[in-house]
Protein backbone atom coordinates (compact mmCIF):
# COMPACT_ATOMS: atom_id res chain seq x y z
CA UNK A 1 0.00 0.00 0.00
CA UNK A 2 1.17 3.56 -0.68
CA UNK A 3 2.64 5.22 2.41
CA UNK A 4 0.21 8.09 1.96
CA UNK A 5 -2.71 5.68 1.92
CA UNK A 6 -1.47 3.90 5.00
CA UNK A 7 -1.51 7.24 6.81
CA UNK A 8 -4.89 8.29 5.45
CA UNK A 9 -6.51 4.91 6.13
CA UNK A 10 -5.01 4.89 9.61
CA UNK A 11 -6.67 8.23 10.31
CA UNK A 12 -9.98 7.11 8.83
CA UNK A 13 -10.03 4.04 11.05
CA UNK A 14 -8.76 5.80 14.17
CA UNK A 15 -11.72 8.19 14.23
CA UNK A 16 -13.52 7.90 17.55
CA UNK A 17 -16.82 9.73 17.05
CA UNK A 18 -18.65 11.01 20.11
CA UNK A 19 -22.01 12.72 19.77
CA UNK A 20 -21.55 15.70 22.07
CA UNK A 21 -24.26 18.24 21.38
CA UNK A 22 -27.05 19.67 19.26
CA UNK A 23 -26.47 23.28 18.22
CA UNK A 24 -27.97 25.75 15.73
CA UNK A 25 -25.94 25.73 12.54
CA UNK A 26 -24.80 29.34 12.93
CA UNK A 27 -23.19 28.57 16.26
CA UNK A 28 -21.00 25.77 14.92
CA UNK A 29 -20.42 26.19 11.18
CA UNK A 30 -17.54 28.54 10.54
CA UNK A 31 -18.22 31.10 7.84
CA UNK A 32 -21.97 30.46 7.65
CA UNK A 33 -24.12 33.55 7.11
CA UNK A 34 -27.91 33.86 7.26
CA UNK A 35 -27.97 33.80 3.47
CA UNK A 36 -25.49 30.95 2.96
CA UNK A 37 -27.50 27.85 2.13
CA UNK A 38 -25.75 24.51 2.29
CA UNK A 39 -26.88 21.65 0.09
CA UNK A 40 -26.00 18.05 -0.61
CA UNK A 41 -23.45 17.04 -3.22
CA UNK A 42 -20.88 19.00 -5.20
CA UNK A 43 -21.33 22.74 -5.94
CA UNK A 44 -24.33 23.74 -8.05
CA UNK A 45 -26.10 26.95 -9.03
CA UNK A 46 -29.76 27.39 -8.12
CA UNK A 47 -30.89 27.35 -11.76
CA UNK A 48 -29.26 23.98 -12.26
CA UNK A 49 -30.66 22.29 -9.16
CA UNK A 50 -33.17 19.45 -9.44
CA UNK A 51 -36.78 20.30 -8.49
CA UNK A 52 -36.68 18.69 -5.02
CA UNK A 53 -33.57 20.69 -4.11
CA UNK A 54 -35.15 23.91 -5.41
CA UNK A 55 -38.23 23.11 -3.32
CA UNK A 56 -36.01 22.63 -0.30
CA UNK A 57 -34.46 26.05 -0.92
CA UNK A 58 -37.95 27.61 -0.89
CA UNK A 59 -38.72 25.75 2.30
CA UNK A 60 -35.51 26.99 3.92
CA UNK A 61 -36.20 30.59 2.83
CA UNK A 62 -39.60 30.37 4.53
CA UNK A 63 -38.23 28.52 7.56
CA UNK A 64 -35.56 31.15 8.14
CA UNK A 65 -38.07 33.97 7.70
CA UNK A 66 -36.11 35.41 4.78
CA UNK A 67 -39.07 35.09 2.43
CA UNK A 68 -42.61 35.82 3.57
CA UNK A 69 -44.36 33.59 1.08
CA UNK A 70 -43.64 31.12 -1.66
CA UNK A 71 -43.69 33.73 -4.44
CA UNK A 72 -41.08 35.78 -2.67
CA UNK A 73 -39.12 32.57 -1.97
CA UNK A 74 -39.12 31.69 -5.66
CA UNK A 75 -37.81 35.14 -6.55
CA UNK A 76 -35.17 35.34 -3.84
CA UNK A 77 -33.86 31.83 -4.48
CA UNK A 78 -32.65 32.90 -7.90
CA UNK A 79 -31.93 36.63 -7.55
CA UNK A 80 -28.52 36.37 -5.92
CA UNK A 81 -29.71 36.96 -2.37
CA UNK A 82 -28.58 33.47 -1.44
CA UNK A 83 -25.10 31.94 -1.73
CA UNK A 84 -25.17 28.18 -2.30
CA UNK A 85 -22.40 25.95 -0.95
CA UNK A 86 -21.95 22.22 -0.45
CA UNK A 87 -22.47 20.97 3.14
CA UNK A 88 -19.23 19.06 2.69
CA UNK A 89 -17.21 22.26 2.54
CA UNK A 90 -18.45 23.22 6.03
CA UNK A 91 -17.73 19.93 7.77
CA UNK A 92 -21.37 18.94 7.45
CA UNK A 93 -23.46 16.38 5.60
CA UNK A 94 -27.17 16.13 4.89
CA UNK A 95 -29.32 13.33 3.48
CA UNK A 96 -31.29 13.85 0.24
CA UNK A 97 -31.38 17.59 -0.62
CA UNK A 98 -29.28 18.17 2.50
CA UNK A 99 -30.49 21.77 2.87
CA UNK A 100 -28.80 23.18 5.95
CA UNK A 101 -29.27 26.80 7.05
CA UNK A 102 -28.63 29.31 9.83
CA UNK A 103 -31.10 28.30 12.51
CA UNK A 104 -31.35 24.58 11.94
CA UNK A 105 -30.26 22.37 14.83
CA UNK A 106 -27.32 20.12 13.96
CA UNK A 107 -25.89 17.03 15.58
CA UNK A 108 -22.33 17.79 16.70
CA UNK A 109 -19.95 14.82 16.56
CA UNK A 110 -16.46 15.16 17.97
CA UNK A 111 -13.37 13.02 17.59
CA UNK A 112 -12.24 12.04 21.07
CA UNK A 113 -8.52 12.25 20.29
CA UNK A 114 -8.28 15.35 18.12
CA UNK A 115 -11.37 17.35 19.07
CA UNK A 116 -12.25 17.78 15.40
CA UNK A 117 -15.98 18.11 14.72
CA UNK A 118 -18.51 17.19 12.07
CA UNK A 119 -22.18 17.97 11.72
CA UNK A 120 -25.45 16.71 10.32
CA UNK A 121 -29.03 17.91 10.50
CA UNK A 122 -31.72 15.98 12.39
CA UNK A 123 -33.86 13.46 10.53
CA UNK A 124 -37.31 14.95 10.08
CA UNK A 125 -39.15 11.67 10.35
CA UNK A 126 -42.33 10.49 8.70
CA UNK A 127 -43.84 12.21 5.67
CA UNK A 128 -42.16 14.23 2.97
CA UNK A 129 -40.37 17.19 4.52
CA UNK A 130 -37.65 19.64 3.67
CA UNK A 131 -35.27 16.91 2.58
CA UNK A 132 -37.57 16.08 -0.36
CA UNK A 133 -38.31 19.73 -1.18
CA UNK A 134 -41.67 20.06 0.52
CA UNK A 135 -42.58 23.56 1.80
CA UNK A 136 -46.03 22.97 3.34
CA UNK A 137 -47.09 24.50 6.63
CA UNK A 138 -46.87 21.05 8.22
CA UNK A 139 -43.21 20.80 7.28
CA UNK A 140 -42.49 24.32 8.50
CA UNK A 141 -44.26 23.61 11.79
CA UNK A 142 -42.21 20.51 12.34
CA UNK A 143 -38.93 22.30 11.60
CA UNK A 144 -39.91 24.90 14.19
CA UNK A 145 -40.70 22.22 16.75
CA UNK A 146 -37.38 20.49 16.06
CA UNK A 147 -35.55 23.78 16.50
CA UNK A 148 -37.37 24.85 19.66
CA UNK A 149 -38.22 21.59 21.40
CA UNK A 150 -36.40 18.51 20.15
CA UNK A 151 -33.01 20.18 19.60
CA UNK A 152 -32.69 21.48 23.18
CA UNK A 153 -33.89 18.15 24.60
CA UNK A 154 -31.21 16.26 22.68
CA UNK A 155 -28.63 18.85 23.67
CA UNK A 156 -29.41 18.44 27.35
CA UNK A 157 -29.48 14.68 27.03
CA UNK A 158 -25.98 14.70 25.57
CA UNK A 159 -24.69 17.06 28.23
CA UNK A 160 -26.09 14.90 30.99
CA UNK A 161 -24.60 11.68 29.68
CA UNK A 162 -21.31 13.36 28.82
CA UNK A 163 -21.50 12.48 25.13
CA UNK A 164 -22.67 9.40 23.30
CA UNK A 165 -20.10 6.99 21.87
CA UNK A 166 -21.28 6.33 18.32
CA UNK A 167 -18.75 3.68 17.29
CA UNK A 168 -20.13 0.97 19.59
CA UNK A 169 -23.66 1.81 18.47
CA UNK A 170 -22.68 1.55 14.82
CA UNK A 171 -20.89 -1.74 15.47
CA UNK A 172 -23.93 -3.07 17.29
CA UNK A 173 -26.18 -1.84 14.51
CA UNK A 174 -24.21 -3.98 12.04
CA UNK A 175 -24.53 -6.97 14.34
CA UNK A 176 -28.29 -6.37 14.55
CA UNK A 177 -28.87 -6.34 10.81
CA UNK A 178 -28.36 -2.70 9.79
CA UNK A 179 -26.00 -1.67 7.01
CA UNK A 180 -26.44 1.87 8.35
CA UNK A 181 -27.36 3.53 5.09
CA UNK A 182 -30.76 2.24 4.02
CA UNK A 183 -31.43 0.31 7.20
CA UNK A 184 -31.03 1.99 10.59
CA UNK A 185 -33.77 0.19 12.49
CA UNK A 186 -31.36 -1.20 15.04
CA UNK A 187 -29.38 2.00 15.58
CA UNK A 188 -32.59 3.99 16.02
CA UNK A 189 -34.02 1.39 18.38
CA UNK A 190 -30.83 1.40 20.41
CA UNK A 191 -31.09 5.15 20.81
CA UNK A 192 -34.60 4.82 22.20
CA UNK A 193 -33.79 1.77 24.29
CA UNK A 194 -30.77 3.40 25.91
CA UNK A 195 -32.11 6.89 26.51
CA UNK A 196 -35.91 6.86 26.67
CA UNK A 197 -35.79 7.05 30.46
CA UNK A 198 -33.66 10.20 30.33
CA UNK A 199 -35.66 11.83 27.55
CA UNK A 200 -38.81 11.20 29.57
CA UNK A 201 -37.36 13.23 32.45
CA UNK A 202 -35.71 16.02 30.41
CA UNK A 203 -38.56 16.62 27.96
CA UNK A 204 -41.25 16.69 30.64
CA UNK A 205 -44.62 17.34 28.95
CA UNK A 206 -43.01 17.03 25.48
CA UNK A 207 -41.63 13.54 26.23
CA UNK A 208 -44.46 11.82 24.42
CA UNK A 209 -43.88 13.92 21.30
CA UNK A 210 -40.10 13.53 21.34
CA UNK A 211 -40.25 9.76 21.81
CA UNK A 212 -42.94 9.46 19.12
CA UNK A 213 -40.80 11.61 16.79
CA UNK A 214 -37.88 9.21 17.12
CA UNK A 215 -39.79 6.00 17.46
CA UNK A 216 -42.61 6.21 14.91
CA UNK A 217 -42.01 6.53 11.19
CA UNK A 218 -38.47 7.82 11.65
CA UNK A 219 -36.61 4.61 10.84
CA UNK A 220 -33.64 6.52 9.48
CA UNK A 221 -33.28 8.65 12.63
CA UNK A 222 -29.88 7.12 13.39
CA UNK A 223 -28.60 7.64 9.81
CA UNK A 224 -27.89 11.33 10.37
CA UNK A 225 -25.79 10.55 13.46
CA UNK A 226 -23.86 7.89 11.59
CA UNK A 227 -23.36 10.25 8.65
CA UNK A 228 -21.79 12.86 10.89
CA UNK A 229 -19.57 10.16 12.40
CA UNK A 230 -18.40 9.06 8.96
CA UNK A 231 -17.94 12.63 7.77
CA UNK A 232 -15.68 13.06 10.78
CA UNK A 233 -13.61 10.00 9.85
CA UNK A 234 -13.39 11.17 6.22
CA UNK A 235 -12.30 14.67 7.17
CA UNK A 236 -9.65 13.27 9.51
CA UNK A 237 -8.29 11.24 6.58
CA UNK A 238 -8.39 14.18 4.17
CA UNK A 239 -5.35 16.14 3.04
CA UNK A 240 -2.63 13.49 3.05
CA UNK A 241 -0.38 14.42 0.10
CA UNK A 242 -0.29 11.68 -2.51
CA UNK A 243 -3.15 9.68 -1.01
CA UNK A 244 -5.70 8.14 -3.35
CA UNK A 245 -8.26 7.44 -0.60
CA UNK A 246 -11.79 8.66 -1.32
CA UNK A 247 -12.88 11.18 1.34
CA UNK A 248 -16.25 12.17 -0.10
CA UNK A 249 -18.94 10.82 -2.37
CA UNK A 250 -21.90 13.15 -2.64
CA UNK A 251 -24.79 13.75 -5.04
CA UNK A 252 -26.76 16.93 -5.63
CA UNK A 253 -29.39 15.26 -7.79
CA UNK A 254 -27.80 16.51 -11.01
CA UNK A 255 -24.16 15.60 -10.53
CA UNK A 256 -22.30 13.39 -8.16
CA UNK A 257 -18.83 14.26 -7.01
CA UNK A 258 -15.97 12.62 -5.22
CA UNK A 259 -13.01 14.02 -3.34
CA UNK A 260 -9.73 12.32 -2.53
CA UNK A 261 -7.38 12.79 0.38
CA UNK A 262 -4.40 13.82 -1.78
CA UNK A 263 -6.28 16.69 -3.44
CA UNK A 264 -8.26 18.26 -0.58
CA UNK A 265 -11.10 20.58 -1.54
CA UNK A 266 -11.27 19.49 -5.18
CA UNK A 267 -14.40 17.90 -6.59
CA UNK A 268 -14.41 15.45 -9.47
CA UNK A 269 -17.88 15.17 -10.90
CA UNK A 270 -20.08 13.42 -13.42
CA UNK A 271 -23.84 13.30 -13.98
CA UNK A 272 -25.68 11.56 -11.16
CA UNK A 273 -26.70 8.05 -12.17
CA UNK A 274 -30.30 6.86 -12.13
CA UNK A 275 -30.81 4.40 -9.31
CA UNK A 276 -31.77 0.81 -10.12
CA UNK A 277 -34.29 -0.41 -7.62
CA UNK A 278 -37.81 -1.04 -6.49
CA UNK A 279 -40.48 1.63 -6.80
CA UNK A 280 -43.33 2.19 -4.41
CA UNK A 281 -46.77 1.42 -5.83
CA UNK A 282 -47.81 4.09 -8.30
CA UNK A 283 -44.29 5.20 -9.20
CA UNK A 284 -41.92 4.27 -11.97
CA UNK A 285 -38.45 5.24 -13.10
CA UNK A 286 -40.09 8.17 -14.93
CA UNK A 287 -40.83 9.67 -11.50
CA UNK A 288 -37.28 9.26 -10.21
CA UNK A 289 -34.72 11.95 -9.67
CA UNK A 290 -31.11 11.06 -10.43
CA UNK A 291 -29.13 10.01 -7.36
CA UNK A 292 -29.25 12.56 -4.56
CA UNK A 293 -27.82 13.23 -1.10
CA UNK A 294 -24.70 13.30 1.05
CA UNK A 295 -25.57 9.97 2.65
CA UNK A 296 -23.00 8.26 0.40
CA UNK A 297 -20.57 9.33 3.13
CA UNK A 298 -21.68 6.01 4.67
CA UNK A 299 -20.00 4.09 1.84
CA UNK A 300 -16.90 6.29 2.24
CA UNK A 301 -16.70 4.90 5.78
CA UNK A 302 -17.36 1.29 4.72
CA UNK A 303 -21.09 1.05 5.47
CA UNK A 304 -24.13 0.93 3.18
CA UNK A 305 -23.31 -0.92 -0.05
CA UNK A 306 -19.91 -1.90 1.36
CA UNK A 307 -21.50 -3.71 4.30
CA UNK A 308 -24.64 -4.81 2.52
CA UNK A 309 -24.33 -8.42 3.61
CA UNK A 310 -25.01 -7.34 7.20
CA UNK A 311 -28.55 -6.40 6.17
CA UNK A 312 -30.00 -9.29 4.17
CA UNK A 313 -33.47 -8.07 5.15
CA UNK A 314 -33.25 -5.07 2.81
CA UNK A 315 -32.33 -6.79 -0.43
CA UNK A 316 -35.93 -6.97 -1.59
CA UNK A 317 -36.62 -3.40 -0.52
CA UNK A 318 -33.71 -2.36 -2.75
CA UNK A 319 -35.03 -4.41 -5.64
CA UNK A 320 -32.22 -6.98 -5.57
CA UNK A 321 -32.99 -10.49 -6.75
CA UNK A 322 -31.55 -12.38 -3.81
CA UNK A 323 -29.35 -12.23 -0.75
CA UNK A 324 -26.52 -13.31 -3.04
CA UNK A 325 -26.53 -9.77 -4.40
CA UNK A 326 -25.74 -8.48 -0.92
CA UNK A 327 -22.88 -10.91 -0.52
CA UNK A 328 -21.52 -10.17 -3.99
CA UNK A 329 -21.74 -6.44 -3.40
CA UNK A 330 -19.75 -6.62 -0.18
CA UNK A 331 -17.24 -8.96 -1.84
CA UNK A 332 -16.81 -6.55 -4.74
CA UNK A 333 -16.24 -3.65 -2.35
CA UNK A 334 -13.39 -5.55 -0.68
CA UNK A 335 -11.60 -5.41 -4.02
CA UNK A 336 -11.63 -1.60 -4.13
CA UNK A 337 -11.00 -0.79 -0.49
CA UNK A 338 -7.71 -0.42 1.33
CA UNK A 339 -8.50 -2.21 4.57
CA UNK A 340 -10.94 -3.92 6.87
CA UNK A 341 -12.23 -1.87 9.78
CA UNK A 342 -11.19 -3.43 13.08
CA UNK A 343 -14.14 -1.98 15.03
CA UNK A 344 -16.90 -2.57 12.52
CA UNK A 345 -17.30 -6.26 11.85
CA UNK A 346 -19.57 -8.43 9.76
CA UNK A 347 -20.87 -11.42 11.72
CA UNK A 348 -21.98 -13.26 8.56
CA UNK A 349 -18.43 -13.12 7.22
CA UNK A 350 -17.02 -14.60 10.38
CA UNK A 351 -16.50 -11.14 11.86
CA UNK A 352 -14.37 -9.91 9.02
CA UNK A 353 -13.91 -6.14 9.23
CA UNK A 354 -16.04 -4.00 6.90
CA UNK A 355 -14.43 -3.11 3.55
CA UNK A 356 -13.23 0.34 4.37
CA UNK A 357 -11.35 3.10 2.59
CA UNK A 358 -12.26 3.25 -1.11
CA UNK A 359 -9.12 3.64 -3.20
CA UNK A 360 -9.34 5.31 -6.62
CA UNK A 361 -6.32 3.31 -7.78
CA UNK A 362 -8.19 0.09 -7.13
CA UNK A 363 -11.34 1.48 -8.70
CA UNK A 364 -9.50 2.51 -11.85
CA UNK A 365 -7.45 -0.68 -11.99
CA UNK A 366 -10.41 -3.05 -11.57
CA UNK A 367 -13.15 -0.97 -13.16
CA UNK A 368 -15.25 -1.83 -10.11
CA UNK A 369 -16.94 1.31 -8.76
CA UNK A 370 -18.60 1.91 -5.40
CA UNK A 371 -22.19 0.73 -5.08
CA UNK A 372 -24.44 2.91 -2.95
CA UNK A 373 -27.58 1.77 -1.19
CA UNK A 374 -29.93 4.67 -1.47
CA UNK A 375 -33.43 6.09 -1.38
CA UNK A 376 -34.93 7.21 -4.68
CA UNK A 377 -36.39 10.70 -4.51
CA UNK A 378 -39.20 11.93 -6.71
CA UNK A 379 -38.09 14.29 -9.45
CA UNK A 380 -40.81 16.72 -8.34
CA UNK A 381 -40.56 18.90 -5.28
CA UNK A 382 -42.58 17.84 -2.26
CA UNK A 383 -43.54 14.34 -3.43
CA UNK A 384 -40.95 12.50 -1.37
CA UNK A 385 -39.43 9.07 -1.64
CA UNK A 386 -40.67 6.96 -4.57
CA UNK A 387 -38.50 3.89 -4.10
CA UNK A 388 -35.16 2.52 -2.99
CA UNK A 389 -32.33 0.83 -4.75
CA UNK A 390 -28.69 0.50 -5.52
CA UNK A 391 -26.66 3.07 -7.39
CA UNK A 392 -23.54 2.00 -9.22
CA UNK A 393 -21.34 5.03 -9.71
CA UNK A 394 -19.89 5.86 -13.15
CA UNK A 395 -16.11 5.57 -13.21
CA UNK A 396 -15.23 8.88 -14.88
CA UNK A 397 -14.65 11.03 -11.77
CA UNK A 398 -12.38 8.35 -10.33
CA UNK A 399 -10.32 8.41 -13.53
CA UNK A 400 -10.26 12.22 -13.53
CA UNK A 401 -9.13 12.31 -9.91
CA UNK A 402 -6.32 9.87 -10.63
CA UNK A 403 -5.14 11.91 -13.62
CA UNK A 404 -5.27 15.10 -11.56
CA UNK A 405 -3.21 13.51 -8.80
CA UNK A 406 -0.71 12.24 -11.36
CA UNK A 407 -0.38 15.77 -12.70
CA UNK A 408 0.07 17.12 -9.19
CA UNK A 409 2.84 14.59 -8.56
CA UNK A 410 4.45 15.18 -11.96
CA UNK A 411 3.78 11.66 -13.21
Amino acid at each position, binding site marked *: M*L*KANEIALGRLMAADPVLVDVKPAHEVLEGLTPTTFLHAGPPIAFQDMCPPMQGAVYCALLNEGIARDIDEARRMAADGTITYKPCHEFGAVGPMTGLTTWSMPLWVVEDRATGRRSYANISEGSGVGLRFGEYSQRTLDRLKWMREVAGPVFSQLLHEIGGMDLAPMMAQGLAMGDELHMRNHAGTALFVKNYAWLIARIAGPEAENVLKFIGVGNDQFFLNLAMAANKLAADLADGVP*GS*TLVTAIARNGVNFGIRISGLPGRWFTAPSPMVKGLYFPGFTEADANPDLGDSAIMEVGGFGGCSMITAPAIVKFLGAASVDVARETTEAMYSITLGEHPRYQIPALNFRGTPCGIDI*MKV*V*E*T*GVTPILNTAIASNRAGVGMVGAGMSTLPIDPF*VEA*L*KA*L*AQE*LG*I
Partner: protein
Amino acid sequence: MENKLFEEKMSVINLGLPSFFESVKDQGAPCVHVDWRPPAGGDVRLIEILDRLRELG
Protein backbone atom coordinates in the same frame (compact mmCIF):
# COMPACT_ATOMS: atom_id res chain seq x y z
CA MET B 1 16.13 -17.60 -0.47
CA GLU B 2 15.39 -21.27 -0.70
CA ASN B 3 12.29 -22.33 -2.53
CA LYS B 4 10.15 -24.74 -0.47
CA LEU B 5 7.72 -25.40 -3.29
CA PHE B 6 8.42 -29.14 -3.42
CA GLU B 7 8.14 -29.58 0.33
CA GLU B 8 5.05 -27.59 1.21
CA LYS B 9 1.41 -28.00 0.34
CA MET B 10 0.88 -26.03 -2.85
CA SER B 11 -1.96 -23.65 -3.68
CA VAL B 12 -2.59 -22.59 -7.26
CA ILE B 13 -3.73 -19.16 -8.45
CA ASN B 14 -5.12 -19.07 -11.99
CA LEU B 15 -5.18 -15.97 -14.18
CA GLY B 16 -6.61 -16.48 -17.63
CA LEU B 17 -8.07 -19.62 -19.18
CA PRO B 18 -10.87 -20.93 -16.93
CA SER B 19 -10.18 -24.46 -18.19
CA PHE B 20 -6.78 -24.44 -16.46
CA PHE B 21 -8.57 -23.56 -13.22
CA GLU B 22 -11.12 -26.32 -13.67
CA SER B 23 -8.45 -28.93 -14.33
CA VAL B 24 -6.48 -28.00 -11.21
CA LYS B 25 -9.68 -28.13 -9.17
CA ASP B 26 -10.52 -31.51 -10.69
CA GLN B 27 -7.17 -32.78 -9.43
CA GLY B 28 -8.18 -31.78 -5.92
CA ALA B 29 -5.53 -29.11 -5.46
CA PRO B 30 -6.52 -25.86 -3.75
CA CYS B 31 -7.00 -23.27 -6.47
CA VAL B 32 -8.28 -19.70 -6.71
CA HIS B 33 -9.30 -18.19 -10.01
CA VAL B 34 -8.84 -14.49 -10.63
CA ASP B 35 -11.70 -13.11 -12.69
CA TRP B 36 -9.22 -10.89 -14.48
CA ARG B 37 -10.08 -7.87 -16.61
CA PRO B 38 -7.67 -5.66 -18.49
CA PRO B 39 -6.45 -3.15 -15.88
CA ALA B 40 -8.00 0.29 -16.24
CA GLY B 41 -9.96 -0.98 -19.24
CA GLY B 42 -6.65 -1.36 -21.07
CA ASP B 43 -5.92 2.41 -21.02
CA VAL B 44 -2.15 2.67 -21.36
CA ARG B 45 -1.82 6.10 -19.74
CA LEU B 46 -3.85 5.03 -16.70
CA ILE B 47 -1.84 1.84 -16.32
CA GLU B 48 1.33 3.92 -16.43
CA ILE B 49 0.00 6.22 -13.71
CA LEU B 50 -0.97 3.26 -11.53
CA ASP B 51 2.44 1.65 -11.94
CA ARG B 52 4.34 4.87 -11.31
CA LEU B 53 2.30 5.62 -8.20
CA ARG B 54 3.05 2.15 -6.87
CA GLU B 55 6.74 2.59 -7.57
CA LEU B 56 6.73 5.87 -5.67
CA GLY B 57 5.28 3.90 -2.77
